């Protein structure tokens, strides 16, 4: 920024008018409207989900994704056409950085919820502490532990016996996913997932070194490994979810333990999926299109930042959801 002077000013490319925004809006609104309809059909609908809702949702989603594709293609072509000044590139950098920051805050909301219920609400419900010393009247017999294996509702004898209007059935899990079975650490999936994800961050870095050295083979190789590790992570997580649902009795309905567990790991998994897709696209750009040079590879860089961010989130998840 300080280097720019008005004598040697490289024009900032302001794109001409463009249909992208309005198309993206159309796709977004349709898919969101469809998704909301599907959920409402599911919960309140008489015969269940109508095909209409699904069609709206899928059309919208397709349109949205197609627009995103076109959008990124346009941006890439502009760059290849040499329209992007250093200053404009910096705008993209800032954009990506603050986008990731907003994602951090999104996760913060769920981590905050986790801390709040674990450290304050749980004990209160069990009649402890300044905020909760009378709550024992309502939830007689409830004892707090984390992970919460028995919900307050179960403690008083089920939905019909609870002292407040019934709003669902919450039964705790049979088995916790925490690091309780130390003797069987090798069978403990989250640990392997951590290894997978941490190494993928490392391979991603290797790929970066590759492109900085101008070594495309190295770049492609390590990027491919990264993507594969990402996929492996997702497979392991899918397996873990399957186990949780079928063998551990840990579901979205298992009270607050299930709620926080699945929301945190689920959103993280979704972000892994996004990051992996981004990296995969960069890989294809490099392999099929021969794009990226040692000095110009922002698409990859942005994806890799995202990937490292996802990785850091996992470290916190591992610590707070699984271990502590």
């Amino acid at each position: 920024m300080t280097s720019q002077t008005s004598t040697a000013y490289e024009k900032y490319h302001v794109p001409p008018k463009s249909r992208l925004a309005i198309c993206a809006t159309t796709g977004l609104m349709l898919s969101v409207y469809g998704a909301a309809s599907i959920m409402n059909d599911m919960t309140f609908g008489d015969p269940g989900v109508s095909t209409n809702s699904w069609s709206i949702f899928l059309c919208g989603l397709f349109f949205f994704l197609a627009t995103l594709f076109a959008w990124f293609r346009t941006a890439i072509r502009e760059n290849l056409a040499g329209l992007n000044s250093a200053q404009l590139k910096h705008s993209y950098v800032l954009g990506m950085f603050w986008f990731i920051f907003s994602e951090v805050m999104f996760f913060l909301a769920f981590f905050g919820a986790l801390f709040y219920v674990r450290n304050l609400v749980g004990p209160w419900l069990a009649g402890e502490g300044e905020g909760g010393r009378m709550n024992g009247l309502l939830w007689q017999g409830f004892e707090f532990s984390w992970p919460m294996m028995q919900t307050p509702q179960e403690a008083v004898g089920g939905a019909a016996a609870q002292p407040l209007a019934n709003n669902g059935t919450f039964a705790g899990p049979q088995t916790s996913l925490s690091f309780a079975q130390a003797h069987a650490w090798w069978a403990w999936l989250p640990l392997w997932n951590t290894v997978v994800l941490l190494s993928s961050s490392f391979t991603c870095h290797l790929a970066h070194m590759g492109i900085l050295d101008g070594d495309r083979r190295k770049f492609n190789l390590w990027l491919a490994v990264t993507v594969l590790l990402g996929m492996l992570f997702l497979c392991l997580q899918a397996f873990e979810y399957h186990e949780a649902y079928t063998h551990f009795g840990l579901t979205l309905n298992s009270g607050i333990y299930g709620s926080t567990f699945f929301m945190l790991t689920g959103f993280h998994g979704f972000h892994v999926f996004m990051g992996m897709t981004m990296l995969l696209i960069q890989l294809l750009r490099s392999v099929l299109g021969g794009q990226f040079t040692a000095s110009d590879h922002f698409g990859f860089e942005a994806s890799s930042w995202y990937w490292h961010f996802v990785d850091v989130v996992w470290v916190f998840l591992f610590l707070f959801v699984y271990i502590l």
Partner: protein
Amino acid sequence: MSFQAKRLCKLTLGPVLMLTSALVLAAGGETSQVNMSPGVTEVGKNIYDLHMIILGICTVIGLGVFGVMFYSIIYHRKSRGVAPATFHESTAVEIAWTVVPFLILILMAVPATSTLLQIYDNDDADLDILVTGYQWKWKYEYINENGENVSFFSNLKTAQGEIHNLEAKGEHYLLEVDEPLVIPVDKKVRFLVTANDVIHSWWVPALAVKKDAIPGFINETWARVEQTGVYRGQCAELCGTNHGFMPIVVNVVDQSEFDQWLGEKEKDAAAVKKLMAQNFTLDELMARGKSVYARNCQACHGANGEGGVGKAIAGSPIATGDLATHMDVVIHGVPGTAMQAFGGQLNDVDMAAVLTYQRSAFGNNMGDKVQPIDVFNHKKG
């Protein structure tokens, strides 16, 4: 009159007119109150003092700030031919007006803290009352270590006709209930506040008590009322359609009067127990059911069973269908909807009556009777 004076008059005219009209109105109709009332508890008086102190400080600061501003508005106007000054900072002044407000805030924080600690001193109560918010009524339960708890619901008493402007509105329009809470004077009464469905808030201004009623949690608060009398309040947290219609009335009486009242309540409770074993005729059940319905169900299901928040009872497949299912719905509620479990709210007699009533009123003519013992057996499973 000089130019500036005229200007000042014009500028202040609006606010002054407004304030005086407000004050005149306030003094004129004794119904219009402009300030917080100190209420009838020590805490209330402390809060009132706090309120007045801070209001006073703010008024003084405000007068200062606006005074300086109006001075420039009058004397530093371009039309008077002044040349603008050019100064634009002064570290000393800026530090001063950072530090001085800070000190003023500390001054305010001191009494605020001590009053807050007083409010939070929930120990050593003479009497515990469990207050539960329901959509849209309050339940009061006197917690008594030796023996039967007395408990009852407190519903809005104002007639629908008054609300819909068909009848003249009474003196305590919207602030009257069928059964007020009764507490003894000069005793520390502890309120354990909770809710059954959504969040409500139990607020009686004269007692300086406002506490949110959170479903599944019990909040503690207390009051020691210094004067007998009737004090009124309202639910203070948006809780759905009839949030504006769930008032609170507290009747503060002498200890002896209170003991007598509580004794009668206990007797009533025993009487209901006896009724449980009795068999009723259809007419008896219908008559009782009508009033139970009006109190508990009408708000959602309509005066003529036409529905509203809840589904219509008139012609309802449930109310005209299998009795066991009907009982299930009313006793256990419909999870995930506003239809609550009434099993814990109505005694078996009332439950039997309202079931019978629903099955034979509003053009539903099942004509069958439900006896308290049926309800009892059904609950046992």
